[in-house]
């Protein structure tokens, strides 16, 4: 490319270093009154056209900005694996076994209140969706699982979830174990743990 002259270089550097957009008059003050600022600006607009950064004018003030099609570069999303809290797993399990269920249903089955965040986390994960309101007084919102839930847990359908009898056979309903587990986890029970 053609080497820019000193006037162009000065305007370019001034715009780059400025903390806010500059008018042509501001620039003239910076780079010296003998400089043809409009010509330098026109040259720079040209030089930067098609680059990753463009020189743009907004209301008489000039500044460099990222090319609009590259805005996504400024925001990078990064996924960080995180384990669900116990409250969230229990809530998810109850929804999966009993759907559609209202929040009150979940609390009745869990025996513990659930915090706002617990359902949010499950919906953010894409495993739970609102499933309409129940036509009873108060019209509570109900929740159900999503296809993404089935996919994540490797289930063909909800019928693949082991039934109560299967759980009992697997020892997962053993009261003594449950009692011991509860003793160890009483302190974790408050719903503060989720999110």
């Amino acid at each position, binding site marked *: 490319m053609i080497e820019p002259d000193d006037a162009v270089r000065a305007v370019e550097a001034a715009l780059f*270093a*400025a903390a806010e957009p500059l008018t042509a008059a501001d620039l003239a003050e910076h780079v010296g009154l003998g400089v043809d600022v409009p010509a330098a600006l026109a040259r720079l607009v040209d030089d930067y056209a098609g680059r990753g950064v463009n020189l743009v004018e907004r209301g008489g003030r000039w500044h460099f900005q990222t090319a609009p099609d590259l805005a996504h*570069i*400024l925001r990078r999303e990064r996924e960080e694996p*995180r*384990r669900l809290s116990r409250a969230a797993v229990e809530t998810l399990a109850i929804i999966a076994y009993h759907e559609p269920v209202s929040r009150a249903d979940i609390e009745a089955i*869990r025996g513990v209140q659930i915090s706002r965040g617990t359902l949010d986390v499950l919906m953010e994960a894409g495993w739970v969706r609102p499933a309409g309101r129940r036509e009873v007084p108060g019209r509570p919102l109900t929740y159900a699982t999503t296809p993404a839930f089935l996919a994540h*847990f490797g289930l063909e359908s909800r019928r693949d979830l*082991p039934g109560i009898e299967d759980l009992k056979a697997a020892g997962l309903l053993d009261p003594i174990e449950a*009692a011991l587990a509860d003793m160890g986890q009483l302190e974790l029970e408050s719903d503060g743990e989720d999110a």
Partner: protein
Amino acid sequence: MEPAESLFEDSPRVAEADRLTLDIDGWEGPLDLLLTLARSQKVDLARISILALVEQYLAFIADAKKLKLEIAADYLVMAAWLAYLKSCLLLPKDPEQDPSPEELALRLQLRLQRLSAMREAGARLIGRDRIGRDVFLRGAPEGLRTIRRAAWQADLYDLIAAYGAVRARTEPAVHIVARRPVMTLEEALLRVERLLGARLDWTTLESFLPETQDGEYRRSALASSFVATLELARKGRLELDQKAPFAPLYIRAA
């Protein structure tokens, strides 16, 4: 003691009235003063005459004393050491002396070279094109943001185990008390009365107990039978005899 060294040179720190004392404080310690004196000789530090340098330093300190300036202790310590070095360098060589005066002088020379090298390096460093003074960064960068998204994880086992735990926790609890083998007092009364009729002489209480392998049942039978004998004795139906505490208890029909 440490010479005053301010981090940033702001206001001129030499007030007119203090000028005399501050003549010494203008140097950052004796080594700095020595280096300044060495520089005034305008020769390469590698070829400088340490003896001449020592004499300059001692003369400077002597002058300062004459002017009754306060001289910091470390300048005086250096003066004493240099006076010693000077005498060693001038006196006939003592081959036993270790380290030799020449080595001491060389060490001083090396130290001055090193300080001088760093002083020059610092000056060149500070004179480079520095950010914020000579070159400038983008004034208003948009900034790059990383948005962290949680990828929630749980597996099927977690799910069903959690459901099991919920159900186990909330299932109404049923308590079943296990049945323990006991002999009731009524049973014992009937049994002792019946057996009493069949025996004529003193018999131990133990011989009234049923044959059993069950230790718990045996203890229960012993306790109940004992209470039964006391009851029957109170009614005058039998007599009890015991020779000493914990000795066998004998029973006979009255």
